[in-house]
């Protein structure tokens, strides 16, 4: 092989390697978001018309993890909004879903009795050393109930945790089993806490 041919081969290989590195730098993997609400046990409904305020922060919420060459994203906004609506409809007699109002005060929309605001307080996923290790997803959702003047009536924070195999990091469904467990736990607990609240039922009785 002549020196000039060797130089050309090295140049082509260098270009290919640089291209791969640049492409690798910008890679983002967006995982699939659950599209169906979790199954919730029915409870005795609270006789209130609730404005469920789905804020833009909730709708845009996601988990994100950045590494040197990769970004991993798990969108959560749609599933949290959908499950919040499902939970509110299990607990309250009437639910009016409002998007685009990000204020945490009154007045209530369209004759609602109270304002219910869900928010993602935290979400975290760990990274086991191998794909056979167990991954844990932890999440906390805060619920705030206000009267139509914006006064706090009730609040709680519900935590959930799901464990499952790490699996293939580049699969669009990576982490899905543990996410399903977390959502089931959080919204199941949310329904129980809201329906068991004496404050909420006393407020409904006083209306």
């Amino acid at each position, binding site marked *: 092989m002549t020196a000039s041919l060797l130089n050309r081969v090295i140049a082509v290989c260098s270009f290919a390697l640089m291209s791969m590195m640049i492409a690798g730098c910008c890679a983002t993997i967006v995982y699939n978001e659950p599209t169906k609400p979790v199954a919730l046990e029915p409870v005795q409904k609270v006789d209130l018309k609730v404005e469920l305020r789905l804020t833009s922060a909730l709708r845009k919420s996601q988990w994100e993890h950045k590494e040197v060459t990769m970004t991993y994203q798990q969108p959560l906004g749609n599933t949290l909004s959908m499950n919040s609506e499902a939970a509110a409809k299990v607990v309250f007699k009437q639910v009016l879903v409002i998007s685009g109002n990000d204020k945490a005060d009154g007045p209530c929309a369209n004759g609602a009795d109270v304002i219910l605001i869900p928010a993602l307080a935290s979400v975290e996923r760990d990274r086991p050393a191998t794909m056979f290790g167990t991954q844990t997803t932890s999440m906390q959702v805060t619920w705030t109930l206000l009267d139509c003047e914006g006064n*706090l009536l009730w609040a709680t924070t519900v935590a959930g945790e799901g464990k499952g195999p790490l699996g293939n990091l580049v699969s669009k469904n990576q982490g899905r089993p543990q996410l399903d467990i977390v959502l089931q736990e959080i919204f199941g607990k949310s329904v129980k806490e809201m329906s068991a609240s004496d404050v909420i039922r006393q407020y409904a009785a006083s209306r």
Partner: protein
Amino acid sequence: MLGCSAQRLPDYPTLPLSEYGQMKTQDGVTVAVHPMTDSQETEKYFGMNLLKHDTLVVLVAVENHSPTVNFIIQKDRISLKETLSGGSNKIGQNTSESALAAVTGGAILVCPVAALVTIPFMVQAATNTAEIKRNFAAKELHQETISPGNAKNGFVYFRLPPERSAQMQKTLSISLWDPIGKRSNIFEYQIEIGSK
């Protein structure tokens, strides 16, 4: 710090309120606080020396002994402010909403865990940043209703100024809201913060 495996940082033990540093009672609700100013303690429960990273962690424990009244922890009203000498706002005194707004002017408000954006940078050397972040979130005090006979506890986080004197004295203010009486009970505590 943490090993390769996802080893969990330990939970802070739940103690009788009288065993925490400071405790006050108003209208049947008792609030105790424990500022974590010992580096060994923050290393143990948070995986790092937090004061060195300009973060003050305070445990807040609340017990509702009222037979009828619910109280809501007003997370956004928790603040750390300069201690005023000879002020009219006495410690433990019930303070109205407007007075609270006045006294919190210029205060360092409680920092939600999500706002501790520097955490990932603090723990660059740690193998498991996810556990440290999870632990911060799991131990955080939230805006929650405490019904009669129940108790809650959790940590609040404050960002401190990087340029600060060796010894600082601050007043920690905690607000509990009575949703039926529509009034806040304010609890105040003197806290001494040492050097980094």
